[in-house]
């Protein structure tokens, strides 16, 4: 287990490093001078040159990359253009809001998706199964930002059941949770469908397995077979899928934060683009990437802990 974890950690470091290289080369290769982009059309040549030197853009490309690379690993993501504050600090201020949003999305999808998928698998072929199937496909298909806007329209604007904008009063947990309901549902609704489908499919696969047939042949109670013998195996691909899903939820979070005017990393990046605050954009993208890789690592380790076959693999 230890060596498995170590190997996965090494792989994660390699992925993050390569992602940094990709991000850096994308910035470097895409036409356009970051300093010029940041300052806008009315800047003078002298101003641009000054910013270029400040951002280190006058140095050779490999020095630039090295500075970027070592800086990023030590938590120095540069300084943002407008207020000259460290990018890392600005991003970290906004991160908790995004994490809360994603945690909300995951809660919806796990709390509803897993029982729904399990139920559909056990009642395979019934009307309930079919309705669950169609509904899951439907919520997966519709993009989260459309769901967000329609939810806003129906529950906040028309019915006025839930607040439309903001993240709630700081310190008032109830208010914050009320403000979280609509955005987290917009982020997590599609994932309820994904997880229900995934759990259903892997449950059906496991229920067909020879060892389940053996368990039935020993007359074990159906509940024991469903939950202890089948679901413990069927849940494993779902955990991996959730790890991957975090990435897509990060994307959906951008929309949810914009639509519901919530603070968060997505809103931060979007605003940074409008103000051409380019170091802030790359810094925030890098943070979300690292977050995504870390969560995937966590998902793999959880699978490892749950599955004795993985656990014993050295």
């Amino acid at each position: 287990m230890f060596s498995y974890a170590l190997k996965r950690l090494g792989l994660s470091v390699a992925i993050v490093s390569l992602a940094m290289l990709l991000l850096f080369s994308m910035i470097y290769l895409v036409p356009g001078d970051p300093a010029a982009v940041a300052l806008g059309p009315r800047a003078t040549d002298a101003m641009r040159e000054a910013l270029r030197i400040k951002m280190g853009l006058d140095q050779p490309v490999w020095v630039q990359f090295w500075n970027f690379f070592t800086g990023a690993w030590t938590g120095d993501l540069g300084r943002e253009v407008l207020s000259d504050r460290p990018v890392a600090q600005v991003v970290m201020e906004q991160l908790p809001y995004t994490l809360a949003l994603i945690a909300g999305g995951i809660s919806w999808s796990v709390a509803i998706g897993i029982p729904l998928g399990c139920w559909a698998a056990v009642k395979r072929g019934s009307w309930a199964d079919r309705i669950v199937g169609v509904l899951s496909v439907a919520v997966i298909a519709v993009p989260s930002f459309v769901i967000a806007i329609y939810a806003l329209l129906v529950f906040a604007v028309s019915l006025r059941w839930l607040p439309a904008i903001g993240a709630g009063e700081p310190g008032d947990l109830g208010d914050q949770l009320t403000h979280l309901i609509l955005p987290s549902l917009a982020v997590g609704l599609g994932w309820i469908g994904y997880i229900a489908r995934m759990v259903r499919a892997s449950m059906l696969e496991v229920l067909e397995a020879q060892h389940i047939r053996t368990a039935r042949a020993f007359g074990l109670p159906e509940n024991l077979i469903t939950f202890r013998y089948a679901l413990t195996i069927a849940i494993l691909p779902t955990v991996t899928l959730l790890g991957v899903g975090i990435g897509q939820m990060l994307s959906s979070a951008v929309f949810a934060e914009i639509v519901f005017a919530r603070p968060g990393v997505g809103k931060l990046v979007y605003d940074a683009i409008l103000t051409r605050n380019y170091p802030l954009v790359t810094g925030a993208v890098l943070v979300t990437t690292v977050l995504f890789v870390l969560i995937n690592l966590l998902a793999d380790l959880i699978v490892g802990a749950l599955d004795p076959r993985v656990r014993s693999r050295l």
Partner: protein
Amino acid sequence: MSEAVSNPPSMAQRLRLGDIWKATRRVLREPLGAFGLILVLVMIGGAVFADWLTAYEPNKISPRDRFQGPSLDHLLGTDHLGRDLFTRVLHGGRIALWVALFSTAISLSIGIVLGLIAGYGPRWLDNLMLLLFDSIKSFPTVMLALALVTLAGPSLTAVVIVVVLVNVPGYARIIRTQTLALKESEFVTAAQSMGASSARILRVHVMPNVIGPLLILASMDIPVVIAIEAGMSFLGLGVRPPTPSWGAILNDGFTAIRDTPWIAIAGGLPIILTTLGFTFLGETLRDVFDPRLKGRG
């Protein structure tokens, strides 16, 4: 010896019209598939015949007609510049469908080639490519789009590049996994023992067995591509105004959601219907042709 003689078309590779008709009938037998097919055909028809279906110009500004609610004259109402939303939705469908087909085709071609190389090539190359795929996938889609557009500026090309970057790693991985499995299969070993070249093994023995499932999965990805295009246009990172796009209409509507909700509805409706249509159709195609894929992707 000529290629033509050495490779007569095999029975399996010949596609016949009758087969397509048979397949369509099997899809139509499923209520969900029929529903999906109709939605998709309506959307494609609307986009193709947009010029004949309405009397309005998609980009013609008409201040007198601003903010009109849905009526017989304007089926979906008008926006803040007095443009007919129904017309803009039809024309927006052209953009959405074009991006979906074009970028999916590019992603597929690149994904298949990379996947075959990763699966059949040397081990180190496979590991390197996997690492690369994982790194690209580790950027959340929208973040990747945001970073790219910040520098290159919003455009349709940017949308296509984002879609390709998002799709290729997944397609390549699927092809790679299947190629790896097939590489160990006895019929590929048998081909090796007969002296077939790697190119021939990939073309004759591997490709026909991996391409079918991938095409079905790709067809199920079309809604995702449409969502990416609409999403980027919603954020103002896709097509530039005044070109009509569903995402842009949705954004117009969002800005004025309290007073004129029909604009947001007009922008969201085609996105919902199209993604649902393609998804239902794709699901049915998969169930009909490749039940083994169920629950994947």
